[in-house]
């Protein structure tokens, strides 16, 4: 076995097996902290051994066995008697053992625990990236521009709370499931969005590592809950957004708006997969949730050969449907952008201006106004709106785009 081959096998095993190993150890030892540490040690051992000894025939089983041994070593080291551990486990997880052949829901349990509503949103994000995606603490800290020690503390505190307050390690009951799944999807969407529109001066405008992790985790949940429409919707939305990734930032690091993007640079395979998911949800005949509607809007955009060929009335109709589910001003703002294409910038501007009291601190509100004012020939007002948008925008590519548009005003 070549060293490169072993390395590749470890990367692959990390992607495929990390969450499974952590989940199985959490189940056995009833302790996320032990599971996390032992899983990390098992992978470190693989890095040491596999290049010399070769990749074991079943990497997952090897990693689980090794991690189990590491966990038991740690428990012995800490001089905890095994029966005490068993007692803790029994209390922590009182479900009957699963019958052989039942679907593997270990990773689902893990996801629901990490995304528990009793944890702060930022904590859920960090914990999910650590426990389920297997990112290291320094990686997560870097992704969210937080000091490593602060991130370490956040994760440590979360694990302590899960244990002390006994946040259960299980899939929620059918009655609570829809709400809890939407909580999980909110975490994944946040990870994706942070990757897609990274904030912070000096940061890359798009954090591919984060969008890729979010897609990978959503694919995992989709595999575990194939019947859930919103899971499919979120995955489709992410794929259709990711498909436009390369066309969205120019070589000089400037954001390229949808109407100026080179549609030939879109990823056709991701678009095809996204469209397939959207069609699958349409065929299901179940009233769609917000992610499914957002995915459908994205599907309309990605179906058009160019911006003029876009079916704007369909986009507006979908935003109307979305607004009925979620009457948020941000949705009203996006609807107005589509209205501008359908009914002209004047109608759209009137709709946007009605949002001032809630969106005055949001850069996209000012960017939208600036564009509509520009199209109406009101350069002075447009310039002021661009200034405000630039002042509020946190993404480097977006700032560059807005600055150019402002400077092009006559």
């Amino acid at each position, binding site marked *: 076995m070549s060293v490169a081959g072993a390395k590749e096998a470890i990367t692959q095993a990390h992607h495929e097996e990390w969450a499974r190993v952590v989940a199985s150890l959490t189940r056995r030892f009833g302790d996320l902290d032990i599971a996390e540490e032992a899983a990390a040690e098992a992978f470190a051992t693989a890095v040491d051994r596999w290049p010399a000894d070769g990749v074991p025939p079943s990497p997952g089983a090897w990693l689980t066995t090794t991690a189990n041994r590491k966990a038991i070593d740690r428990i012995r080291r800490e001089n905890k008697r095994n029966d005490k551990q068993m007692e803790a486990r029994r209390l922590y997880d009182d479900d009957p053992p699963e019958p052989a052949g039942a679907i593997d829901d270990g990773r689902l349990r893990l996801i629901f625990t990490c995304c528990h509503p009793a944890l702060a949103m930022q904590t859920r994000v960090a914990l999910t990236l650590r426990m389920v995606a297997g990112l290291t603490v320094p990686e997560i800290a870097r992704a969210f521009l937080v000091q490593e020690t602060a991130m370490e503390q956040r994760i440590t505190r979360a694990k302590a709370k899960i244990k002390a*307050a006994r946040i259960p390690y299980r899939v929620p009951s059918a009655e609570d499931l829809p709400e809890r799944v939407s909580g999980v999807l909110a975490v994944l969407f946040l990870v994706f969005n942070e990757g897609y529109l990274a904030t912070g001066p000096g940061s890359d405008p798009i954090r591919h590592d984060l969008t890729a992790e979010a897609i990978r985790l959503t694919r995992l949940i989709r595999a575990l809950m194939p019947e859930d429409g919103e899971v499919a919707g979120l995955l489709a939305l992410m794929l259709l957004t990711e498909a436009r990734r390369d066309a969205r930032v120019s070589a000089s690091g400037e954001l390229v708006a949808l109407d100026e993007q080179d549609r030939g640079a879109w990823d056709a395979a991701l678009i095809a997969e996204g469209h397939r998911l959207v069609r699958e949800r349409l065929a299901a005949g179940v009233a769609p949730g917000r992610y499914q509607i957002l995915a459908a809007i994205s599907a309309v955009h990605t179906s058009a050969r160019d911006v003029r060929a876009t079916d704007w009335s369909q986009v507006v109709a979908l935003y109307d449907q979305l607004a009925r589910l979620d009457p948020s001003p941000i949705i009203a703002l996006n609807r107005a952008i589509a209205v501008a294409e359908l009914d002209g910038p004047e109608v759209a501007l009137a709709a946007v201006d009605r949002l001032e009291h809630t969106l005055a601190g949001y850069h996209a509100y000012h960017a939208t106004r600036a564009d509509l004012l520009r199209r109406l020939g009101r350069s002075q007002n447009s310039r002021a709106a661009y200034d405000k948008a630039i002042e509020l925008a946190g993404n480097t590519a977006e700032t560059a785009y807005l600055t150019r548009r402002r400077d092009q005003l006559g």
Partner: protein
Amino acid sequence: MQYLVSVINDTAALATPDEQAAIDVFNGRLKAEGYWVFAGGLAAPSSATVIDNRGEEALFTDGPFLESKEYLIGFWIMEAPDLDVALKLAADGSKACNRKIEVRPFL
């Protein structure tokens, strides 16, 4: 597993008769379903006395240890298998007493 479920008051008002009736119904349910350990309402914070006997002699101070707009007005101690169950009960408790509630596990 036991949880301390604290009722937080942010006005001077005590429970109205309607709230009291809803609390009684909720307490009855806690007992019937086996979650009940103990519960009680508290007099106003101004009736508290703080005692510190770590030094040579016991020191008595009139008033609560912390003056704040929000204060503890009552509590339940519930027996629940995990936080999900405790949070659900607490949500119903909050509705019944019409107040904000904090859930905290015992060690």
